[in-house]
């Protein structure tokens, strides 16, 4: 099936947002858990979670406000609500490429996040169905989507995956593994990536020692290359 450039772009971004939504919840649960061990009076680790997402809050840190804002505020571009709405904006025009069954999992995420936003439900364990639906979405993609459409979805997914892994200081071997998967999809669409940038990114990924210093400047450079990699 022939795909327009616009459709490819939407597939790529659907892949990115679906992965971001999944990892956002995963990492937020982790941050939630870590907050439990912070001694009273100390800054909650939760603020690290926001910083890693490039969210800088001015003024005093009110943990419950931040949680609600990051989960449900449609005006906050980094919020889970926004991520899911962006996911839907892409998915809604891709029914023919991803099929109704895969689309239905995105619809379920949106329906749930809208209900929870109204309820202002601060218990993130109640958002587990979103994680489940996103995992089912990717399973449905494996089952039903082939060729170029799948490649673009997976390129988006893997770039987002590596981006979040770098931001959250995942171990080097995790980045290397994910990069290996990304390379396989790049092989299917070699014209899509900037050759100079991919060479620079590869060089940074293989340098374990430099990466494992978790130097913010080094990370920023990697993220910069990663996010300029695909030219859709």
């Amino acid at each position: 099936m022939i795909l327009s450039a616009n459709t490819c772009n939407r597939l790529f971004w659907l892949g990115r947002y679906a992965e971001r939504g999944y990892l956002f919840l995963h990492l937020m649960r982790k941050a939630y858990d870590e907050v439990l061990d912070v001694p009273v009076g100390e800054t909650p680790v939760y603020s690290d979670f926001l910083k890693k997402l490039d969210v800088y809050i001015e003024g005093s840190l009110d943990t419950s406000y931040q949680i609600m804002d990051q989960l449900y505020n449609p005006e906050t571009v980094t919020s889970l609500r926004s991520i899911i709405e962006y996911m839907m904006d892409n998915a809604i025009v891709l029914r023919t490429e991803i099929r109704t069954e895969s689309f239905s999992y995105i619809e379920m995420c949106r329906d749930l996040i809208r209900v929870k936003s109204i309820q202002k439900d601060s218990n993130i364990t109640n958002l587990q169905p979103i994680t489940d639906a996103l995992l089912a979405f990717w399973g449905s993609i494996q089952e039903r989507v082939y060729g170029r459409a799948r490649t673009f979805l997976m390129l988006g997914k893997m770039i987002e995956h590596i981006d979040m892994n770098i931001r959250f200081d995942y171990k080097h071997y995790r980045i290397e593994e994910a990069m290996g998967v990304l390379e396989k999809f790049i092989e299917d669409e070699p014209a899509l990536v900037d050759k100079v940038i991919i060479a620079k990114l590869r060089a940074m990924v293989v340098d374990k020692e430099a990466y494992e210093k978790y130097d913010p400047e080094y990370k920023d450079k990697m993220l910069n290359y990663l996010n300029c990699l695909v030219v859709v």
Partner: protein
Amino acid sequence: MEDLLKARDSVNQWMERFGVRFGVYKNGVFNEQLFPFDAIPRQIPADEWAMLEKGLIQRVKALNMFLYDIYHDKKIVADGVVPKEFTYESKGYMPECEGITPTHNIYAHIAGIDLVQAKDGRWLILEDNLRIPSGASYPMIARKVTRKAAPQTFRDNLIADNRNYGDMLREMMDYINDGRGINVILTPGRYNSAFFEHSYLAEQTGATLAFPGDMVVENGIVYYVGLYNQKERVGAIYRRVSDEYLDPLAFEPSSLLGVPNLMEAYRAGNVGVINALGNGVADDKGIYYFVPKMVKYYLNEEPILHNAPTYLPFFKEDFDYIINNVSKLVIKDVAEAGGYGVMFGRDMTPERLEEVKQLIIKEPRRWIAQEVVDFIDLDIIDETGKPSPRKCDLRAFVISGKETKVWKSGLTRFSRNPNSFVVNSSQGGGFKDTWVME
């Protein structure tokens, strides 16, 4: 059917999950909403359906012949069967289509014919929709869901399967395509009220869903433009964009929804357009009055299906009747659709009745009047969970490709307001599945 009624919440959840919605603009704001589904189906017995099927095929064949005649020989006008005021002065008539013969000489590939059943059992035609009739996707997906949610109902009843609509469309599109290239469904975009249908039908037919800007015309050939400017020839376009927006170089120059130079490719016979351009001349509410006459004129047959009793103020005798009886008639603006421009005389104040009379006197060609048909009510499950009668119509879908076929189902729309006769989704109506019994 008990398990189907019990499963209605589950059915609605599935519909929500599949994104079965339609868009509505209110005060300039776009909102998507679920199309309310009622689980009690309309059931049509096999013998009744057989009669409907014959009548619908007859009607659509006559309408197709009329369209060819209007844009070619014009015999029906020359013979005085249809006045020129209802053809060449109709808003739906497109002089740009003069002399163009669409692929296989078919104009109305997908006809949506609206009917109601009177209390005496007769089926009456309310409207012919030959431009972009919508709605087939809703009963199609509803059937998919209801079979899943209430399997016993479908084991206990012999119901014609309606999940073949995608296959019927694909077969027709392939015939019109004539092997020239790919099939495409052209949508105006996701903010169109029927976008769900466009995307779902593309999925079901295997056609490419094209958005404005996705196609170009080069040397009279239409191409779909893929990644890296790769081009693939288009053989048939099932367009869901109105005639006037389809080609900015031929019609509305400000249109961003169409394909520049599409008319050139169409005129050269290089692409099939479904439905053909210029069909509006045959589904004008004024021309509706003449369809039974077309059946006799072109097919030399008696019409099997009849119109609701209709009067045209254009004719002196009808004009006098309308002016004297406006309080008991339904007055319709021929230029409107979607339930807009429909006025029930019985609901109007004396002042409003007088205003309407003046409108008819001023522009007799703009209006038709119909007797209020006392059509049968069908039960729906209302907000309290109890059966409650509502006015319903039926949109039957007639597909014309190699053969003319009627889809064994249809969109049954109901009014949600118990006192209303208006069933259109844009006016808050809901829908039911239509079961053709075997």
